[in-house]
């Protein structure tokens, strides 16, 4: 099913030009992997990049560059055939099988260093290692059916994309591939639909601030 909440066109433009942070680039790539409509738009914007590369005034390579290049590939007998998806050990992780392929290598490199943490009843989170992400976090979140995250506000901006299942909050229903953006001004209380677990990717600029009693606990704990 095609997602109904898309990434804004600005983000597609910046993704095509390569000017997003690695975390937001991953976010856009994830949406695009799940959304044929935005994939088509991104491909068109990348064609603009290709056209820009084609029409740039060339700068001659230094003498011997071709020889060095040929020596480099000479060490490789034949181009390698495309490898099938690497058989990663996913420990029966229920989230892994629901990840689009663009997220699987990120999961694989993060998993040895990060565990799933039970954050609330029926809600687990795992950090993903994304380079150059100093002032934020990239999280995988699993919410069991009918469970939810208590009402919270955001100190920074947060971008969420659903990878599997669906959740609902005050702003609507978010199913596979749907994105939503939260900022400091809004609070919400996402609850997974009954049945299938809801797996989501969240890119946070700053830690989420819980409101209410849990927020007090969070502040005391110094997160």
């Amino acid at each position: 099913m095609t997602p109904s909440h898309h990434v804004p066109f600005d983000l597609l433009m910046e993704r095509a030009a390569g000017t997003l942070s690695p975390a937001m680039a991953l976010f856009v790539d994830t949406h695009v992997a799940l959304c044929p409509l935005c994939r088509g738009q991104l491909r068109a914007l990348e064609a603009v990049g290709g056209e820009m590369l084609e029409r740039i005034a060339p700068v001659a390579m230094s003498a011997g560059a071709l020889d060095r290049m040929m020596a480099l590939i000479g060490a490789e007998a034949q181009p390698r055939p495309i490898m099938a998806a690497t058989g990663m050990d996913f420990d029966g992780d229920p989230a892994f099988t629901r990840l689009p392929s663009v997220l699987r290598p990120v999961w694989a490199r993060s998993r040895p260093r990060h565990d799933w943490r039970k954050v609330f009843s029926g809600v687990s989170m795992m950090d993903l290692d994304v380079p150059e992400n100093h002032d934020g976090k990239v999280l995988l979140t699993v919410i069991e059916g009918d469970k939810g995250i208590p009402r919270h506000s955001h100190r920074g901006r947060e971008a969420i994309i659903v990878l599997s299942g669906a959740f609902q909050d005050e702003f609507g229903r978010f199913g596979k591939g749907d994105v939503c953006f939260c900022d400091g001004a809004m609070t919400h209380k996402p609850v997974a639909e009954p049945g299938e677990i809801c797996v989501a990717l969240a890119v946070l600029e700053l830690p989420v601030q819980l409101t209410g009693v849990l927020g007090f606990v969070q502040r005391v704990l110094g997160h």
Partner: protein
Amino acid sequence: MPFCAGPLPHTRVDPLTKTIESALPLDRETLADLVEAIAERGDRAAFARLFAHLAPRLKAFLMRLGASAGTAEELVQDVMLTIWRKAASFDRRQSSVTTWTYTIARNRRIDLIRRETRPDLDPEEPALQPSAPVAADTALEVERRDAALRMAIAELPEEQADLLRLAYYEGKSHSEIADIRNLPLGTVKSRMRLAFNRLRRAMEPFQ
């Protein structure tokens, strides 16, 4: 021997890049044939021709993005090595060789210039994933789309072309562009959108 000749007899000033444009030495179909020859039989002569066409453009592109000549050449080598290894993931029905190369270079630049490390080639790199097969007639559509795009880029008003150059050639984010041009961020975003709407309209009949 340098890999790019000087300006050819039939040249004109490109309104977008503000450079003398020489006749294209290799056309789209030839480039795609070369990549396929690499994929099918590890054709080294085809690779050398591809290198002669792409390397000087990639070097120029990476230097515009702020790489020194030395770093740019290293990155070019890196991108070309990726092309050699992953030629089989190129699909001429999906994109042109230059667009495919652009996405590889863009992603490697993000990895390397920003991180300043040399991570191993990511076998799951999105640009290198085999894409879903498309109907045969879309190949021609993609080609027509690129031709329409080329025309539309050349006809962009200067204030919009300027922003495209800053984004694609200099790697500036929208907010950095707002600072550089002393424009409100909203103006930058709306001009960008105007530019892309024009380009999109030009491409629309072919999608």
